[in-house]
């Protein structure tokens, strides 16, 4: 039996009006001065992005994906639940995926509540993911990176308890005490919305997803490593008595479709370059605050150097990551091949990067929905 492929439209909502001298700043995160932010321009961008996301819904994308970042031009979604709440009443068919709010930056009961509100408002069309949060977010929030993983696990436990057990219940932990864990409302979906862990493939996050039976949304993981990672996830989930379904392993892709290969590259590559060089530009110090990663991971990362945050070569980047640029036929073939290799039927497609203008974004969304999706719909991996 084959299952349909699923197509998400993922968005970061970047602030695109970088100052002329922005290259003088080593990073566009954490300490990049917010005096460069112009709310008039921000207002126009929110209106534009919301319009594009609603278009994605109309065109037939299966889900809209939003997430959280702080102190950066990379994303204007410091609180993605607000963006999700603005979208929910207007979406016709698409699910809304908040992938997600790092639980460490919220009180766990409050996150359980906000997600429950969105789930009830959308009549059960919410999916959530739990990221630890990038290193940059820890410089921007008053949360200790050295205890982040421990606190993260406790938060997850509280959120799941709030959703799965009838309240009031209690929780006496290291970071939180709840005398009355009894959040209203409770999720529409029972026992709770589909959950994913977001990660870059560290052993710690793999174990959490496997143990809880969650999906795993990998980000910034190179191609070969993704295939290995998905295999590890299937094995570790089985070890804990869970089956990791193909739809639980969304594949993060960067997609641009145009009439010809040449035109697609001409229209897209400059924005992808700016995405990596300018919008994702960070420093080793911001990426790895003290205690955020283990010494083993620190050594692994140092050995691999950082291919993402600054420094761009389209050919190298295209070979490393899942970047499909070209005609509908080429993009469809490419995505289909990757989905089979990754053992997934769930494509999480970044449809807009950096300062890609509205016209190109609409074209990309439209061609993808009308020319790529139909070619692939029936090619899902057997469940």
């Amino acid at each position, binding site marked *: 039996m084959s299952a349909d492929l699923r197509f998400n439209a993922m968005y970061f909502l970047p602030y695109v009006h970088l100052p002329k001298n922005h290259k003088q700043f080593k990073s566009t995160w954490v300490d990049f001065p917010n005096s460069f932010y112009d709310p008039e321009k921000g207002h126009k961008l929110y209106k534009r992005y919301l319009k594009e996301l609603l278009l994605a819904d109309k065109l037939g994308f299966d889900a809209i994906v939003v997430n959280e970042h702080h102190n950066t031009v990379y994303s204007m979604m410091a609180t993605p639940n607000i963006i999700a709440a603005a979208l929910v009443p207007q979406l016709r068919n698409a699910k809304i995926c908040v992938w997600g709010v790092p639980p460490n930056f919220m009180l766990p009961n409050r996150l359980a509540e906000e997600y429950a509100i969105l789930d009830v408002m959308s009549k059960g069309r919410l999916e959530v993911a739990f990221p630890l949060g990038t290193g940059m977010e820890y410089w921007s929030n008053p949360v200790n990176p050295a205890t982040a993983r421990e606190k993260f696990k406790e938060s997850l436990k509280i959120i799941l308890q709030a959703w799965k057990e009838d309240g009031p219940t209690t929780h006496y932990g290291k970071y939180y005490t709840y005398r009355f864990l009894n959040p209203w409302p409770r999720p529409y979906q029972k026992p709770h919305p589909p959950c994913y862990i977001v990660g870059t493939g560290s052993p710690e996050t793999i174990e959490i997803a496997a143990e809880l039976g969650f999906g795993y949304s990998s980000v910034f993981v190179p191609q070969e490593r993704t295939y290995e990672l998905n295999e590890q996830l299937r094995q570790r989930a089985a070890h804990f008595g869970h089956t990791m379904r193909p739809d639980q392993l969304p594949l993060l892709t960067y997609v641009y479709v145009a009439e010809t290969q040449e035109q697609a590259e001409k229209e897209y590559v400059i924005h992808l370059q700016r995405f990596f060089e300018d919008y994702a530009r960070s420093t080793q110090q911001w990426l790895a605050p003290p*205690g955020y990663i283990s010494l083993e991971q620190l050594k692994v990362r140092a050995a691999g150097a950082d291919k993402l945050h600054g420094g761009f070569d389209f050919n190298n980047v295209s070979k490393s990551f899942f970047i499909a640029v070209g005609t509908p036929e080429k993009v469809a073939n490419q995505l289909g091949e990757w989905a089979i290799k990754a053992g997934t039927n769930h494509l999480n497609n970044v449809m807009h990067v950096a300062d890609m203008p509205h016209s190109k974004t609409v074209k990309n969304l439209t061609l993808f929905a009308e020319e790529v999706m139909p070619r692939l719909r029936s090619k899902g991996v057997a469940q």
Partner: protein
Amino acid sequence: MTRFVREEYTVDGVKTVLHAAGSGEPVVVLHGAGTADGFDFAEQWADRFRVIVPHHPGFGFSGDDPTFTDMHDYVMHYLGLFEILGIDTVRLVGISLGGWMAAQFASEHNNRVKKLALIAPAGMYDPNHMPMDIISTPGEVVVGSLVSNFDVLQSKLPAKPDIHFIADRYREATTVARLWWEHPFDPKFMRHLKRVTMPTMILWGDEDKLTPVGLTPMWQRHIPHADIRVFKGAGHLVHLEKPEAVAAIGAFLV
């Protein structure tokens, strides 16, 4: 001169490495937020004392204990080490972060500390003289700010830091983050300094870029009997830059 010899103990399950030299009454030196700068300077006190330089948990050659989240955890650790070493009363020397640690130990156990010497101690809050935030300041900037004359530090550091050196520093920074990420100051620490009743000397470089010399009046206010010595032309690591500072501590400890 008597040279340091490495010894290893287990304190409440944590591997604790120390360097010790000499004989006589114990002088314990509590180091700062890093161990790369070395402690040979303290060997010269070994002609009169048993000089002991332990590495704190999470630093240098000692093991990790991720449960250490405030200075009191280190005070408890040293109570445990002193018990193992049979140390009843002690002369404490504390440098920077170790200065806070030594002063806190002295305020909590003032009957066990005979003399207290603090070198550019951390822990004092004065909004007009804020210390450098060593957590967010890039490592190379912190290192470059430690001394006035970088020559005294250069020979102790690798010319080109390799991944092992970087990982060692990341580990020590992690230990510091557990301690200071949320709370780089503790108002209760300052309140309890009135219990520091033993003879106290505080040494400072007037060019200190980490803990500015402007913090000394606040220390004087909290420990009125402290003998505060300011050394001209010295940075944070006064003891590396000014042999007379090391000699002054040696004379004070007698």
